[in-house]
């Protein structure tokens, strides 16, 4: 049971990591040349 | 009398006579104070002949012979 818990946790961490990398890549592509908090949309 | 700044011996000074216009690399030198009529002096040369250090308007700059050769000078 204990080992089972660890396997699930490890896989969850990996999935979250992959997801974060993908989110980062997509976010960058969406707004070229414009950082997060700048007011270029106004 | 040497014809260009590149030939001016260390320790001597001269007046800038003319510089070709319209060259962007020379525009920056102009903006650093080297314009026709300005007094320049050569402070030293690097051990291997280049670059040279000059004094213009009390400021010290260095440049290579390639640029200095564009700057025509006359006796101070």
């Amino acid at each position, binding site marked *: 049971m204990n080992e089972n818990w660890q396997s699930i*946790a*490890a896989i969850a961490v990996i999935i979250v990591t992959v997801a974060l990398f993908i989110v980062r890549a997509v976010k960058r592509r969406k707004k070229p040349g414009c*950082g997060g908090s700048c007011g270029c949309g106004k | 009398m040497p014809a260009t700044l590149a030939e001016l011996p260390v320790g001597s000074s001269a007046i800038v006579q003319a510089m070709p216009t319209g060259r962007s690399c020379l525009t920056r030198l102009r903006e650093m104070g080297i314009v026709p009529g300005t007094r320049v002096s050569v402070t030293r040369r690097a051990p291997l002949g280049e670059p040279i250090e000059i004094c213009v308007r009390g400021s010290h700059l260095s440049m290579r012979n390639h640029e200095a050769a564009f700057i025509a000078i006359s006796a101070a």
Partner: protein
Amino acid sequence: MSAAAAETPLIAIVGNPNSGKTTLFNLLTGLKQKVANYPGVTVEKKIGECYSQHGKKLRLIDLPGAYSLNARSPDEAVLRDVLLGRRPETPRPDRVVCVVDSANFERNLYMVSQVLELGLPTILVLNMVDVAEQREWRIDAAKLTEILGVPVVKTNAVSGQGLIELKLALSREDISPPKWQDAALPEGVKAALEHSRDEMRQAGAIHTRSSLLEPLYLLSDHDPTHYGIADTQIGRIHELRSRMENDFPGWEDALVAERYRRIEELCAQVLKRPDQEIETITTKLDRILLHPVLGFVNLLLVLGLLFFLIFKVAEGPMGWIEAGFGQLGAWVEGLISPGDFRDLIVNGVVPGVSGVVIFLPQILILFFFIGIMEDTGYMSRLAFIMDWAMSKVGLNGKSFLPFLSSYACAIPGVMAARTIDSPKDRLITILIAPLASCSARLPVYSLLIGVLFPVGEVGAFVQAGIMLGLYSLGTFGAFFFAWVFNKFVMKGSASPMILEMPSYKMPALKSILLQVWQRARMFLVRAGTIILGISILIWAASTYPKTAGDDSAKQMEHSFAGRAGKLIEPVIAPLGYDWKIGIGLIGSFAAREVFNSTMSVVYAVESEDDENLAPLRDKLAAERRPDGRLVYTPLVCISLLVFYVFAMQCVSTIAIVKRETGSWKWAMFQLGYMTGTAYLLSLLIFQIGSALGY
């Protein structure tokens, strides 16, 4: 942006490079500053907060140093664009603090006059008054205020002298626009500029309210990055520029001369200086530090000190960091029972992050050292001495230090290339920097040299000789590629090397430490995010899919990493490598020294500590192929060593190059050319060697 922030006045700090502008900014804002990049360019954007002498909150922005608003580099373009209010993410400053190096007063006035023409309320700061006093230059501040119509404050940013007066001036709300307002334009040029402005306004390229300065800088700048101007307009601007050049040949140069004529008039009224230059500390020091022989001796001493600091002194803290992470791993090991999650932390995250953070002491020392050299003025002398040698491969003297730093680690080397103002030289320096054999290659070199010449067989001298050869090979490769890129890849115009030789001064330690801290924080944030993520993924690649047994070597073979090793085997077989080496190569892409630990896993070598290479070395030396031949023949070892000299195998460097060049293009180009060269050379060595019967 909150409403409160919008009400706080934004004050821009501008000035020539070496005017002590950033020191003043750091003195005023302290830790209350934010460092980011301007979008689209790799120019640091520094905004901070401070309070005026009357307790009013102010926002300060430290703009890049420049010699002119006629931009010649991305840094200068940012300055111009912010002052003209052309950058959408940065509001146009409400007021300007113009910092002047008093000891170079006349030259500094050039940009001052351009800034004054913008018509913004301006405070003139005469900084480095102590250096000017050494030269016996006396500036009449009252007269200057009278003529220019702006408050003038004398300061010494290193000692803090004049800071209160500056804060008092910052409190003033009644600063009237400067008197020096008209650009001295000849009638014909003025008319032509007016015409161009009308045309650009109609096309919507510029503001309807813009002054003549806007078309002036648009038409006279040779920097292609005009922020906020649509690409479609750039073609038209080029046409207008050539028409101006046609109608008024040399108009830009005439404007410069006219500006200096007016500056001379001004100097005659406010500046008193001796006819002959008097002996100062700077002239005395330069006689030694730039002496043909003593200059070189001193240079070697300085570099020797640098290497001693980053290799010897940094060793202690690096050991502590390593031990600290080791303890962390052990602590986790005791806390959680055996399982995947514990394995992920102990064998993935902890060693992965520790392998990068371990370079922190070297990075701190390096940036502190660079900070001292820049602040004292020695950096320009270093560039002066090294320029001749660097010019032979098409670089300039300023490329020397970033390249040298890369022998410790390419990451700070690439970051240090920011000090090079020519964009082309900077890019080439970044591209070649990772060819310097960094300290992460050292463990791999040691291991393979050990396999090549087992102890006892040949003396330590031969081993040291090979090590030296590998370092030389990388250095030679770097110079060769610099020459190639300069000659064939980036033809473009060679930018002139114009180097200012500032007066020597005491370093402002607080300001330098602040900058070191900013770099360190950036590095740690990266280690905590991207490097952490990559470590997790690499662990996953060598763990899944799982085998039933407990045999770690079997597990490695079965995993994604093992399969990838087998997948690339046909590609690396001509170099003499088998799939096990393939796994090591793949692992090295996280960091080169990972090769050693990966190989330990692959060959199931139990080693108590990483420092002791002997068990792994003996295992490698004895390893045989299925047909009974040795895997690590001398030829394979040499092929592998050469591969490590040239290949780009460092994710962190790739990421930092992407950041510093602003695009993936150059990062990928670098990955391609370096790894391609490595492959080609190793292929040649192995194939020719095999054909010769080695």
